[in-house]
């Protein structure tokens, strides 16, 4: 029997930020085989960040949301298949089986399957008018419902004071709707922000007319005779009337296909810093991953930067190169006219320093653990943010006093 080298063919499951990035990085890296990008939505690749903001506010056309024009992908020899759901991965046969029963062969496989919003396991949680926001169609449905609420003068209730919930709340206020945000924890964005910044964001939302309920305990959705949500009931018996409920209580990685195929998963598809799964022919990138760090711990990130950087690493890995993603994580959130930019991971911080003027609305909060700078959260202070990424990349820490002293030039630490 003659040995025939299979024609190289890479299949990418997921046509979001990570999938597109991986496809383009494969081409940029010189890969000349077939690339097939599978998306389960009817839309081609689009920008997700505007969904909770300008898209939801109805300030954008669908064409403005396009991440890459389909003809550009075609020009790069990337075959995009929308409305295509993968049923299973067969590692032995090196195929993916599609929902329509057909099989696609691969020599390299990329998992960029993203994440799914967690559902609220409460009575009435699946009533009409209760939404989670993940994709374009979710955001469009929420926008339609908001229009109905405006027409019928019904209020909006947001469950979860995280980034998605607060961005939706800000957008709903911008549309003039009464908004209540229910957060189970004692403060907003408690897993990410320093207490002082949580308080600042609470005040920002209150000053824009949002009613905040911290430590909220929800018992059920009240459902009207028409099957639509009518209100949110708290355990103390309070009912908050609602024509629209948006649930933003986090996401779970889409690792089902990987898990069923026997790849190592632990609340996400486990990858090394170069994006490799437990099968060297298969890489993963973006929200679906749990990245194994040098100390053995697993890091789950949901961000554009994570998707693009892991996408580049994953492409390199399939081309036989090591391109570890070790850069400082960064994130952002737009609420009202304030831009929050975060660098680093604040988990474990035990003291904080504020640089700038919190009342003026342009400042940064520096998170420290002992002497070490862990993270910096900047509000409308991009310069601090960019400098923080450099400091954290270089492993340099100002003292808390230096961080708080605007007369001290933080760039001098990088010299």
């Amino acid at each position, binding site marked *: 029997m003659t040995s025939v080298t299979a024609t190289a063919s890479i299949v990418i499951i997921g046509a979001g930020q990570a999938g597109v990035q991986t496809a383009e990085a494969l081409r940029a890296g010189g890969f000349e085989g077939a690339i097939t990008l599978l998306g389960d939505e009817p839309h081609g690749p689009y*920008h997700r960040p505007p969904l909770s903001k300008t898209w939801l506010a109805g300030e954008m056309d669908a064409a403005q949301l396009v991440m890459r*024009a389909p003809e550009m992908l075609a020009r790069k020899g990337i075959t995009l298949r929308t409305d295509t759901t993968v049923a299973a991965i067969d590692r032995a046969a090196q195929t993916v089986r599609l929902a329509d029963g057909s099989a696609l062969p691969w020599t390299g496989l990329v998992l960029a399957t993203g994440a799914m919003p967690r559902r609220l396991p409460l009575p009435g949680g699946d009533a009409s008018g209760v939404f989670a926001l993940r994709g374009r169609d979710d955001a469009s449905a929420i926008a339609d419902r908001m229009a109905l609420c405006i027409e019928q003068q019904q209020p909006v209730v947001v469950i979860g004071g995280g980034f998605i919930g607060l961005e939706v709340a800000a957008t709903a206020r911008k549309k003039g709707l009464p908004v209540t945000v229910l957060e189970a924890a004692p403060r907003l964005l408690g897993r990410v922000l320093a207490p002082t910044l949580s308080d600042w964001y609470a005040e920002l939302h209150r000053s824009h007319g949002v009613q905040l309920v911290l430590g909220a305990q929800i018992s059920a959705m009240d459902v009207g005779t028409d099957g639509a949500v009518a209100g949110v009931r708290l355990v103390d018996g309070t009912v908050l009337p609602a024509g629209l409920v948006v649930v933003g209580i986090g996401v779970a990685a889409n690792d089902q296909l990987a898990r069923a195929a026997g790849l190592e998963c632990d609340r996400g598809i486990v990858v090394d810093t170069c994006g490799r799964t437990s099968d060297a022919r298969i890489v993963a990138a973006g929200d679906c991953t749990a990245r194994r760090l040098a100390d053995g711990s697993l890091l789950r990130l949901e961000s554009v930067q994570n998707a693009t950087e892991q996408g580049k690493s994953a492409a390199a890995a399939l081309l036989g190169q090591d391109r570890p993603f070790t850069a400082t994580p960064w994130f*952002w959130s737009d609420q009202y006219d304030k831009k929050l930019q975060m660098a680093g991971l604040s988990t474990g911080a035990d003291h904080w320093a504020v640089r700038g003027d919190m009342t003026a609305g342009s400042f940064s909060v520096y998170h420290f653990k002992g002497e070490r700078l862990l993270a910096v959260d900047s509000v409308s202070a*991009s310069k601090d943010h960019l400098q923080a990424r450099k400091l954290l990349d270089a492993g340099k820490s100002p003292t808390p006093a230096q961080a708080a002293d605007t007369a001290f030039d933080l760039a001098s630490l990088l010299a």
Partner: protein
Amino acid sequence: MAHITFIEASGQSTTVNLADGWSLMQGATANGVDGILGECGGSCACATCHCYVDEARLGDLPPASAGELEMLENVAAERRPNSRLACQLKASAALEGLIVHLPETQE
């Protein structure tokens, strides 16, 4: 509406007719212009839609905000006096005929 011409580092030139309010980043990515990434979707958060605008037309553009100027410090290619972020430039009649050069790299 404004006709905007994007010239990629390779020399490839594309002219698109953008409706008012569209950002140049949106116009480029929706029309198959390579060389602009716009990873953050137009939030002025990633500095991957760096472009060089025709110097003679700089005066026709609204000045960069403080946030844009700060993000411009983080562009991958050389920052020049005519560097702007394409997501912050919105099409209007004032931009008719604008020529925009794209850098070699955005990341």
